[in-house]
């Protein structure tokens, strides 16, 4: 018979086995979020289709027509925007969702035991499904432009993994901070909005002067967005690898530190939430 022992610091030790044991809860929470999301919005999936298209339209007009920024290679500017917007939208909505996830599941946290990491992690799934829908739109757009991506497409999953890692890393940070400091939720929209301007979403990062390029790469989204563009669009300009290395390193650090901080504060969540 399995015996369960509860004492101070115990949960810490069996954390990862618990995480595995509660994997079904992870699926069900993600499934719930998805169901609710597509049931609740009046236009449902149409919203997921419409939003990226509208943003693409605006960005293309603003950055290409008005600001007259160059595209990469022969790619239409709208494709350039879309390829950059994919990871950005995913990252931004992941941050928003996961930072609020524990607060909005307060009834679960205060009534049931499970590794709390499940909550922010499963909230990212919804954003990921939106991402997949947007990706399908991109494929349709490419077909319309008769645009065929090169062999580099095989590297795309690596950049997706990087985006997911960064989303989880920053997401759990914000999630834990949000529980601890209740006014932190005002900071999150600011981070998302600010991030949009300092990330190369509406323009190619090749417009950044070379001497600033490395500094610019300190934004971990730069490497990821560049990577997406590089794998999806055949530009002559190669990938600026330092930025990729930089964002991979930052992602790893943020992810580990985020999970460490989350677990450190997790023990008291039920007491302060």
């Amino acid at each position: 018979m399995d015996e369960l022992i509860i004492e101070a610091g115990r949960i810490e030790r069996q954390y990862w086995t618990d995480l595995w044991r509660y994997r079904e809860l992870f699926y069900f929470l993600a499934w719930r979020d998805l169901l609710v999301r597509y049931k609740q919005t009046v236009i449902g999936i149409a919203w997921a289709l419409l939003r990226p298209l509208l943003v693409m339209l605006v960005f293309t007009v603003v950055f290409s027509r008005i600001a007259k920024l160059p595209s990469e290679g022969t790619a239409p500017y709208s494709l350039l925007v879309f390829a950059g917007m994919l990871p950005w939208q995913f990252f931004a909505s992941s941050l928003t969702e996961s930072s609020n996830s524990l607060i909005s599941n307060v009834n679960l946290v205060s009534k049931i035991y499970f590794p709390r990491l499940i909550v922010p992690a499963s909230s990212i799934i919804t954003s990921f499904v939106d991402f997949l829908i947007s990706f399908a739109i991109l494929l349709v757009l490419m077909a319309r432009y008769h645009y065929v991506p090169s062999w580099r497409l095989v590297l795309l999953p690596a950049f997706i993994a990087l985006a997911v890692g960064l989303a989880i890393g920053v997401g759990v940070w914000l999630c834990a901070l949000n529980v601890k400091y209740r006014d932190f939720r005002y900071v999150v929209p600011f981070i998302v909005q600010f991030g949009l301007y300092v990330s190369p979403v509406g323009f190619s990062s090749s417009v950044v002067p070379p001497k600033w390029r490395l500094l610019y790469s300190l934004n971990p989204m730069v490497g990821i967005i560049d990577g997406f563009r590089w794998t999806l669009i055949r530009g002559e300009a190669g990938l600026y690898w330092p930025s990729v290395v930089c964002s991979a390193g930052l992602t790893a650090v943020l992810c580990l530190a985020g999970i460490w901080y989350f677990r450190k504060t997790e023990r008291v969540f039920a007491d302060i939430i």
Partner: protein
Amino acid sequence: MSNWIIETENLGKKYCLRHGGAGHGYVTLREAMIHALKRISRPLRFQDAASEDFWALNDLSFRVKPGETVAIIGRNGAGKSTLLKILSRITEPTVGRVRLKGRVSSLLEVGTGFHPELTGRENIYLNGTILGMTKREVDRKFDAILDFAGVQKFVDTPVKHFSSGMQVRLAFAVAAYLEPEILIIDEVLAVGDAVFQKKCLGKMQDVAADGRTVLFVSHDLAAVEKLCSRAILLEGGRCRADGPTSQTIAQYQATILEAASLDLATRKDRRGSGLVRFVRVEILDENCKEQGVVLSGRPLRVRLHYRAAGGKTLENCRVSVTFNGWGKMYFVTSTELVNEDCLNLVPEGFIDCIIDELPLSLGTYYLGLYVDVNGDVQDWLDSAATLLVEDGNFYGTGRDYPTGGAGATVLVRHRWQVPTTASMELPR
């Protein structure tokens, strides 16, 4: 095999109470930053004077044998909820240890994780998983759950269209089919209509009869007496009594009365000139029987014993009782409001304030007393008595307050009306 299934050893849980804050557990970033700045500017004074340790549970040890049904009783704040939270692993103990042999399911709330937008079927799966079932288990028990809840027809209707009674039934049905070795239950019987409550009690008796262990926390002493063979009385986080249910309940009632009957006459923190003083407060029911705990919606009689200085009869008196929560007044009863004339009081005796239907929800309330003679304050006391109120099904719906409004709420009889179809027709 040893003969226990739950064992706690010197269990303790410490909370840090912060004074002067907003009263919630979390801090705001702004507060934290100000605090940090203060620390930097005064590095030697790191002791935060505004916080205080509070042991919600203290040195608690007990053992439960397999197949026992044990009740945990005690006043609000005695540590019952903390104990349940520790046993269900929501929070960790500060010291001590618990050993549980077998699968534990805790039911601290009915319908945890129910989502109004999802259908009955979806919610059964979601709630089942949250409570610790696997999908396969839910598959297997699905029909039985539906049957127990009696909502077969609405299985594919979003739960938001369910009546509150149906939601509770569905939620309890999921929990009833958990089949754990140890079942921890908190107050679930406080909800639902009488018929369903009976059904739940029956189900819990079945669970116990199956040789499974039940730990039951409730204010409903009648249910406790019916269901449990043993009861543990907590007081101030410690075990005050542990034994057969009837004995423990008797002791519980005795301790409550003892605390409430403290002599008011010796209190110093009072205002007024003192021509007349309150000396004792009794909380009575409609039959003038003394009560440790009262139920919302039931008759209440507050008996104020007083004594006049010098044995003189007092004329032109006005008396009032305020019903307060922490730092706020909920309502006031006063002779001035309902009587045409002032009262004349004999030198020593009592005066009763009668409330036909107590409009307060679950919680602890403090009574403030006031008396004046010819408009001059004679005696004025805060927290002269403690009023413990339990849910008493005020509205007859099993709910005494809406979701999120738990505790310390004034209950008001009211009804809602939707315009009839005739009056809703648009003018042509």
